[in-house]
């Protein structure tokens, strides 16, 4: 059977909705945890073994659970937060918990790329730890952070494909239920093409913004 254009457009909106909302919350969590992972490590501006040894394994645990399992494993939590465990909005909770820790590792890498000399200069000026983070580390890592965010966004699009498992809808769900389970090759083809265009567009935009940030 054929799939209506309306269905595809609807699915596209669902995907974009899930990606943007979970990117927003996941981004905040990721930046926060990423900064924490950097500044509390040994020898850094807010060295704190206690915090680091809590945050680090937590991030690892979330990173090691395959998303499809995380999706169902945290259903009680999802119900607690959004009131239901089924539907597009319900899918956002696991998506945030998936992308937050993932993005935090990318943020961590970006911030660690900043030359230690910059931090030394900041300290010699008598900057507070907070000033070092937002006046020195973040601006210097900015272009790299844009690329990290791009990577995280694309990873998120991939993850939304699995949201169908809890009735989240989206393009991936359409591809599975209509394309795979009902043998509609054309549906698979169309959704794949849309996803490819989406990913290409986001990567292109990310690269462009990154170059702009580096002024090249």
């Amino acid at each position, binding site marked *: 059977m054929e799939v209506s254009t309306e269905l595809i457009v609807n699915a596209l909106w669902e995907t974009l909705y899930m990606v943007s909302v979970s990117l927003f919350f996941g981004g905040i969590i990721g930046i926060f945890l990423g900064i924490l992972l950097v500044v509390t490590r040994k020898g850094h501006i807010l060295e704190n073994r206690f915090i680091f040894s809590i945050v680090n394994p937590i991030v690892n645990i979330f990173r090691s659970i395959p998303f499809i399992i995380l999706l169902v494993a945290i259903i009680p939590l999802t119900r607690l937060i959004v009131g239901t465990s089924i539907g597009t909005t319900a899918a956002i909770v696991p998506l945030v918990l998936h992308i937050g820790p993932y993005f935090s590792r990318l943020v961590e890498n970006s911030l660690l790329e900043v030359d230690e000399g910059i931090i030394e200069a900041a300290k010699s000026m*008598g*900057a507070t730890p907070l000033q070092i983070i937002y006046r020195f580390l973040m601006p210097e890592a900015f272009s790299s952070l844009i690329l990290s965010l791009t990577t995280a966004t694309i990873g998120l699009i991939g993850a939304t494909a699995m949201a169908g498992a809890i009735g989240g809808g989206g393009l991936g769900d359409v591809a599975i239920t209509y394309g795979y389970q009902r043998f509609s090759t054309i549906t698979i083809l169309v959704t794949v093409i849309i996803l490819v265009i989406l990913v290409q567009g986001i990567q292109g935009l990310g690269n462009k913004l990154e170059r702009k940030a580096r002024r090249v």
Partner: protein
Amino acid sequence: MIEFRQVSKVFDSGGNKVEALRDIHLTVEKGDIFGVIGFSGAGKSTLIRTVNLLEYPTSGEVIVEGNLAKLSENEIRQAKKDIGMIFQHFNLLNSKTVFDNVAMPLLLSKLKKREIKERVHEILRFVGLEEKAKNYPDQLSGGQKQRVGIARALATNPSILLCDEATSALDPQTTKSILHLLKRVNEEYKITILMITHEMEVIKQICNRVAVMEDGHVIETGNVFDIFAHPKTDTTRNFVKSVVRDEVPESVYRLLKENNDESRIFKIEFFGTDSGQPIVSKTAKMYNVEINVLFGNITELQGIPFGNLIVELIGDDYEIKRAIAFIISQHIEVKEVLEDGSQHRIDRERFVGNALHG
């Protein structure tokens, strides 16, 4: 004034203890351009970092208007605004313009925008980079970047400037201009400068006092002229040699081999007071000797000539001895260059004695 009192620093990396500083006593007076020289690993980097507490001493005290380490975090941050620092690799923010880089310490102090603008332009004018205010660091040459570094360090009007190998990444020409700028900083702003370097040339050009470091110790300290004139340790001697060539060139030895009895070769060392040519021409006029300058290395230290001349004295033995005795009597050190490569310091009394006997 900066005072190091029994300062020691031990780095403990996994049970592997490294003593970077051992019992350092040092006083940098107000208005000094004080140089600390040493090979890498001598501890000089650690030493300069104890001044603004980028490193805390393990024991002992560093006094900069009191012991900073005893203040609260907040007070330390305030005190740091009185100590500027520049770095070998400049450590500028590549994401910010020259203006914003220089404005940074003022921004951290929460100054008003208008005040910041005024101060930044004033200090950029001083370092000669006013028209580069809107450029980014990656559009500047190494020397210009260091000028931005200096401007940034001076923005808060500090009374002390720390220079961490500030010219080591620069070519000799640029090094000269940066040193010249640092000298102006010292003279016009009355800023005390403490600099560490591994280049004796830097010490020679602008420092008035110097400390030589080796293996965590300060092995020699004094005013630059004394250290250059009378180095006490091998390390210091080697550093001095890197600027003022001391060895006798091969060609002189070759000449010695072909020499007849009528000529002898001497090294005349000048440590200031009486300089270069007059003594040579005077000697030649007063005694029946011909003086042939083979090799010379005279440089200037704080406006005082310093170095050595290798001369060949031709004449009969008696006249040569009298001529040398005269030079020695002018308080100038003379050493005879011998074929076996040794240089004998001429014993003054023996010479006077010989001269009398002859």
